[in-house]
């Protein structure tokens, strides 16, 4: 295989990875700030994708409207679910995972009720059709869009977390919730907001994902494992870590498909084990 073709494949991997970054960053955020393992995070991603499908079905050129509305929907749903998780904040992780599994079951059936069993596809909006000639192939504009949006959102996230008062409050709550609360920060409300923002991120990821692949029931279970691998490799609780992890995931998976198409994920499992052997908290993670 020519170097050009390999690089092309790597770039598509970067695209898919950046899409997953939106999902993984939210997951990392929830773990870092609330110490909650949100096994159901990808379900918000999937719900947003379905909502996007509906909106694009209702309005011509609805995709841009969906990009705004669907993540908000996911965030609102997240706000409600956070109230359920809040009862388990200091409990064992497995209880949180079981709560999440219950939510996955409930939402899964609600999605089946609303949208039916068949897979759905969202038509590519005209502005994003076609591709640019690159490396001997036609690199789809949708992938460029995905990378762009994910990068923009990532930068925005960084700015909010490290350059605003809210961001300081969030990081403080992640470091020491009790003390932060004692200093007058409403930590409960903060937790709710953080959860909603994380779900909003997942929602954006889901809407963008509709450009790359079809929507189907059970897609959330496939993606959540990827998200966890990313977050574990990158470091749970680190946003930059989830960026690094996402890029690694995307590239390794894309290359893995070239080598062992049926078992590309194995490379990632091996990588995950290796990373954890040498850096038990992930590449950029820190012990709680």
């Amino acid at each position, binding site marked *: 295989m020519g170097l050009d073709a390999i690089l092309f494949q790597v770039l598509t991997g970067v695209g898919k990875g950046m899409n997953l970054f939106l999902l993984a960053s939210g997951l990392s955020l929830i773990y870092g700030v609330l110490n909650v393992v949100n096994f159901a995070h990808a379900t918000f991603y999937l719900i947003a994708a379905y909502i996007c499908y509906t909106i694009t079905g209702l309005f011509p050129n609805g995709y841009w409207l969906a990009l705004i509305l669907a993540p908000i929907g996911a965030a609102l749903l997240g706000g409600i679910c956070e109230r359920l998780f809040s009862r388990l904040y200091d409990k064992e992780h497995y209880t949180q995972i079981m709560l999440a599994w219950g939510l996955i079951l409930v939402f899964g059936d609600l999605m089946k009720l609303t949208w039916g069993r068949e897979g759905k596809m969202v038509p590519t909006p005209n502005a994003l059709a076609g591709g640019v000639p690159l490396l001997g192939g036609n690199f789809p504009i949708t992938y460029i869009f995905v990378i762009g949006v994910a990068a923009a959102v990532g930068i925005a996230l960084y700015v909010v977390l490290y350059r605003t008062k809210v961001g300081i409050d969030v990081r403080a709550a992640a470091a020491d919730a009790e003390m932060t609360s004692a200093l007058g920060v409403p930590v409960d409300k903060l937790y709710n907001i953080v959860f909603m923002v994380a779900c909003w991120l997942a929602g954006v990821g889901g809407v963008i994902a509709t450009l790359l692949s079809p929507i189907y029931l059970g897609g959330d279970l496939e993606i959540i494992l990827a998200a966890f691998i990313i977050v574990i490799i990158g470091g749970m609780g680190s946003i930059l870590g989830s960026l690094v992890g996402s890029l690694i995931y995307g590239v390794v998976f894309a290359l893995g498909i070239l080598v062992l198409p049926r*078992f590309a994920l194995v490379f990632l499992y091996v990588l995950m084990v290796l990373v954890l052997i040498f850096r038990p908290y992930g590449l950029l993670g820190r012990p709680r």
Partner: protein
Amino acid sequence: MILGLAIIVALPFVVGISWVLLVTELAILVLYAMAYNLTMGVTGMLSFGHGGLFGAGAYILAIAMIKGDIPMPYALLAAPILTALITLVIGWLCIRLTGIYFAILTLAFGQLIWATIWKMRTITGGDDGLTGLQVPSVMASPTNQYFCILAIVMLAVLSIKIIVDSPFGFTLKTIRENQTRAQCIGINVKRYQLLAFTASGLFTGLAGALFAIIMRGAFVEFATVARAFEPLFAGILGGMHVFWGPAFGAGVLLSLDIFIGAYTEYWPLVAGGILILLVLFLPEGIVGRIQSMRKARAQRLNQSSA
């Protein structure tokens, strides 16, 4: 205990065939839940890989009997042993991690097994699965099958009980309660965890193999993530720190599955709702709650008499 045995023996002569088949399936799910609890409830290791191990046991038996023409007794011996070997390898890799990392890696391996089953069509039949399992004539009737499987399950559960009640089991519980402390008193935590995980995998493989027998084949659905969550659900329902908790939970779960499944195809919706309520309001499980209520009452009686 004697009453229970009497019921088990008398059952097929009292109720209809569909009930007999149901209880047979229940027995296997009970074994699965108890096997899983060896990892989760007894040793405190959260695992999501058991779905893959269950499927592995089922497929090993099915492949042996359908493709390899191996007679059932040998296949039934091979399946749990080979599954245990697989579990040993997976466990050896996973055990270097703890907590949520361990759980996710086991999930990864469970998915790997599922993907392998799915993709290797020539051996496993892929999406279609393997059918046409020939059961030996001694097990041809539902009643005979019932007795054979019940006997195997009871032996297996008895073995698990012996393990749990033994000094080995006590060490596992010590590790569950406080890993660091266990290490400080000289217990080789990793080795015990690996042994517990492997034993759990052995019985899970047996459960999977038995399931393949009653289903007369093996199908990809035996190894899904949902399958991995079932015994955990049963444990939470019944109670993970009580020996018979997961068994009770498996019974309730299967009953709900059948009864609610008869009315609607949206059983997951109901199951999810129940699970959410359980986790939020009854995390120790039904049997666990009964036990703690009994203890509380006993304490109150003691105090009032003192």
